[in-house]
């Protein structure tokens, strides 16, 4: 690499990155603290190019949020409601079917299905939900239920995690989104999401899913009350599990949006922090294949720049994104395939439409 680091502490990290040596906790902290944004970008871009060259992926997908009723009521969430509250909803299986039929003429490859922990939905509801999606969209991949929901579904069904996963898999579940990990810190959990499963349980469920042959994503929600140490710890925990199972496909840094949440006094994340989180993920998670620049959260503009800071995937076309928009996201609610390809190619990369497992479409 030819870059002359303005931040000299990056020289040592550069040597490790070039020789393929794994970065440690202190390296992660140094990268987060560095103001040499271009330097951090260079390092991440080096790794990204070795793995993916000029390719940048996206998926033609549809989001389906089947309920916003949630027992957890995490402080950072603008989407959830109590049962009986105004705006609270739970889609019937017929509703789900008609949501899918509304877009049946589109080439949707992946359905991203997540919801709240709604105690009035039975175990059979989840099975029927998957069956229905599979029936209406036999050729699309169902990516559904975060680890937090899997834990809840197991409780509702009175089954072990392993049994639950086996049933869901039989009904059509193929992949699990990475949400619900937030920041794996007991301190943050106590303050922001005390009712949600803790990090050990989240990791346990991910491990069980991977053992059952399902792949999953992983995420980190940043930009609220977490410390840099907690962020780096989080990444290292994910890396350790990935060493063990190899079941994670992509990592997605999630920028916190405070509007309409009980943390609305917090400012938005900055572009420097957003790009650093992408770059850090690429550098620390040496055993993850893909890092996403999630345009819903950081905006199409910055996500495009993120392709040069370690990201190789812009996630999906989506249409109708709800969760982040209820928290004040200013991004579009969906992108067309042409817009997605234009973003990628005008940034100097080659667009690749993919399926859920990063197979090329067409």
């Amino acid at each position, binding site marked *: 690499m030819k*870059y*002359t680091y*303005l931040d000299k502490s990056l020289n040592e990290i550069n040597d490790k990155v070039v020789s393929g040596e794994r970065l440690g906790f202190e390296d992660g902290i140094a990268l987060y603290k560095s*103001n040499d*944004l*271009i330097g951090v*970008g*260079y390092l991440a*871009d080096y790794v990204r190019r070795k793995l993916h060259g000029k390719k940048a992926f996206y998926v033609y997908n549809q989001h389906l949020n089947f309920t916003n009723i949630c027992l957890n009521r995490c402080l950072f969430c603008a989407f959830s409601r109590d049962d009986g509250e105004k705006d609270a909803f739970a889609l019937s299986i017929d509703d789900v079917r008609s949501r899918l039929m509304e877009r049946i003429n589109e080439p949707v490859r992946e359905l991203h299905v997540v919801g709240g922990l709604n105690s009035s939905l039975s175990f059979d509801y989840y099975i029927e939900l998957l069956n229905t999606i599979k029936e209406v969209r036999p050729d699309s991949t169902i990516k559904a239920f975060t680890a937090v929901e899997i834990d809840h579904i197991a409780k509702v069904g009175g089954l072990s995690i392993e049994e639950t996963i086996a049933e869901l898999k039989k009904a059509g579940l193929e992949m699990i989104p990475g949400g619900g990990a937030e920041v794996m810190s007991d301190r943050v959990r106590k303050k922001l999401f005390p009712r949600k499963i803790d990090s050990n349980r989240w990791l346990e469920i991910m491990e069980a899913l991977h053992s059952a042959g399902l792949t999953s994503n992983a995420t980190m929600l940043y930009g609220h009350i977490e410390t840099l140490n907690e962020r780096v710890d989080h990444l290292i925990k994910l890396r350790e599990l990935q060493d063990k199972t190899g079941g994670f496909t992509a990592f997605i840094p999630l920028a916190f949006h405070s509007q309409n949440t009980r943390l609305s006094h917090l*400012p938005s994340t*900055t*572009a*420097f*922090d*957003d*790009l650093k989180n992408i770059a850090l993920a690429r550098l620390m998670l040496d055993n993850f294949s893909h890092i996403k620049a999630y345009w819903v959260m*950081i*905006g199409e*503009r*910055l996500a*495009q*720049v993120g392709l*040069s800071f370690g990201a190789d995937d812009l996630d999906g076309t989506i249409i109708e994104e709800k969760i982040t928009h209820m928290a004040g996201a200013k991004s579009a609610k969906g992108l067309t395939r042409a817009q997605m390809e*234009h*973003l990628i190619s*005008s*940034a*100097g990369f080659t667009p690749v439409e993919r399926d859920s497992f990063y197979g090329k479409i067409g």
Partner: protein
Amino acid sequence: MNNLDKIIEKAASNERINSSEALTLLNEAELLTLAELANKKRQHLNPEPVVTFVVDRNINYTNICISGCLFCAFYCPPGHADAYVISKKELKEKIEETLSLGGTQILIQGGLNPSLSLDYYIDLLKFIKDNFPVHIHGFSPPEIAFIAEKSSLSLKDTINKLIDAGLGSIPGGGAEILVDEIREKTSPNKCSVDQWLEVMKTAHNCGLRTTATMMFGHMEKPEHIIEHLMKIRNLQDNTGGFTAFIPWTFQPDNTRIKVEKATSVEYLRVLAVSRLFLDNIQNIQASWVTQGDKIAQVALVFGANDLGSTMIEENVVAAAGVKFRLPKEEMIRLIQDAGYAAAQRDCFYNIIVAVHGLKLEIGK
């Protein structure tokens, strides 16, 4: 070493690059390479780790315009239901509010309104100067050329009369792309390249400082962008009167040019090449008005050392469907988060208020 690497080396060693070298960089260099080169140039020209901004508002005294440029969503033809000329009462209120918010200047611009004479402009300037201690950054070259022609005066006499009435500096608008072949398509009734440059040259010779701008992402090609930069650099070699250069992207909504909007990566590339090529212009401004706060912050490592105005009011870009907001406090937060000290400046880039809580000493 291939051609691109040679050019990168030349730019990195602070040598002046020529048009064809700039075009190669714009077309072929990696995004982060452009950032590295532009940031290095920024540090060479502005070594203090300070990012400046100005507190002001845009006042559009009239939206009546006979130019009818295809890229404009703001103007009204004479007689249109929405056509207006600002009243003194409204003008007074806007300036009072600006000053109460810590503002130091107003940017006053409008359309080419055939019913306004030189006396109108002189009266407007005098009214402001008689009532308020505020700097007037006003009237872009197409307006100045229009006023001069209407009054049958030379550019020099026109500008001197405006200076006497209180004009403090001229904004660099109306440049769009300084290539006549492009202007004939996008703005056939607007001043030509030579006229634009002549107004700026005359203003500089009369002792008035100005900025220069470029609006790209419509009908031009990369070579036209470089040609534009070359014309600005040549004039600056001659006069030294430009304080800053401000590139921004065309916003197509509600206009008669139907193109895909230039993306942020394209913006950052042009910004970086501008910083490299315009080695004789001290300041480069990021355009948060067209790019939003996130890309404006990233622009600070792509050569920009100034975030422009807090823009208490902005109408022209908003009319084309883009409305970002960036209050002063937020601007300061973004600057500090990027590792720079934030400072409020005047129109001539003198620091007037250094923001508290600076980690870095300002050496001014």
